[in-house]
């Protein structure tokens, strides 16, 4: 036994150290680092998926809130639009009524004018006829019996 307690041998300690350093390099580069890198990569991939899901959820919640807001205002909007449509319809009805009234007045005026024209024409024609009949009656009175002429006048008048 040497003077060193427990037979410690510095050379062998250094050989053990060398062995451990080699073992460290082997295990670190061939096993620990690749496996850890894979774990990190997978963790990051899952984290990305998680973040994406969170972002999508936030976006969906935002859209939902927008729709809810729109849905809440849609009743008022419908009422407003309905009133506008009703008002427009009332205006159009008034316009149609006014147009119809004017048309009716025009037709009436035309009809009155037509009737007046017809009356004038009939009266003029009747005057002509009466004059003609009077002339014929006078001619008959002069050339035939008065009775015959009278009968003939009446027959002519009935025919007309």
């Amino acid at each position, binding site marked *: 036994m040497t003077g060193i307690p427990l*037979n410690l041998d510095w050379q062998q300690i250094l050989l053990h150290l060398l*062995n451990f350093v*080699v*073992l*460290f390099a082997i295990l670190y580069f*061939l096993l620990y680092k690749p*496996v850890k890198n*894979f774990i990190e990569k997978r963790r990051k991939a899952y984290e990305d998926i998680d973040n994406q899901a969170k972002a999508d959820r936030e976006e969906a919640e935002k859209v939902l809130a927008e729709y809810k807001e729109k849905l809440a205002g849609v009743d008022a909007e419908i009422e407003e639009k309905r009133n506008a449509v009703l008002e427009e319809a009332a205006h159009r009805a008034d316009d149609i009524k006014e147009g119809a009234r004017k048309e009716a007045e025009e037709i009436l005026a035309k009809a009155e004018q037509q009737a007046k024209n017809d009356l004038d024409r009939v009266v003029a024609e009747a005057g002509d006829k009466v004059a003609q009949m009077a002339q014929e009656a006078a001619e008959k009175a002069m050339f035939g019996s008065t009775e015959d002429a009278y009968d003939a006048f009446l027959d002519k008048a009935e025919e007309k």
Partner: protein
Amino acid sequence: MNKKQKTRAIIIFICLFVVILAGTILTGTAGHGAGEDISVAMKDAVLHETYKVSLFGLIDVNPGLISAFIVTGVFLIFCIIVRIFVIPKFKTIPGKFQLLLETAVGLFSNMAKANSPHSYSFLGAYIFVAGAYICVSTLFELFGIQVMTTLGTPISLPAPLSDINGAVCLGVLSYLVIFIGGVVKNKFKGVGKALKEFSLPISMSFRLFGALLSGALVTDLIYHASVTSYGIPVIVGVLFTILHALIQAYVLTTIASTYFGEVTEPSVKKPKKTKKASA
């Protein structure tokens, strides 16, 4: 197998056991050689004075160093195979072997992160290697690989850390890692914190050495007597070795990571005391 066949098998097994036991006792050559004194074997297990193994014909070394080299060789082959054939085929949803590797790496990585939250990148790698080395090299003695000593007698290779040189190496190296971690992270304050734990290398070295040597001594003792070398080694040898492997790996890695965390913790500046106005 029916009851009759079972009974017959048990009887045959007992008969074989008795015959082998009787043969062993009658031939009477157990231990490292005929007539070997147990005290010599046990003393040598502690001091490694008698049985040396030649390292490539250059120097005579303790058998534990040969064990260490073999363990490193086994790790090298295993890691190369895993790196080439297993790791490139890793899947997002791991299989059994992938899960085992990920758990081993994750266990030490997380331990480093939990015990030393301010600096854990190198520590994780160090305790992973140290833990794997302690665990596998302790289990290595179960294989009982025989080598020839310089005296011409065969010897079973022991656990590398049951050699005092191996244990001192790992204990001191762990302390150095803690010390350097403190210096890198906290400069002079780190040096002070690390030096405060001056007994750490000794305690770590001798804890490892004592734990693994005790297992080796008890196993040696049991195997030395033929009568106790049946049945009992299953419990003492295998079970104790497995427990030692796991416990010592856990203990050293926990101690190293805890102290590493302590020395790398950033020191908080104390608020200056305001001088009290003298009455």
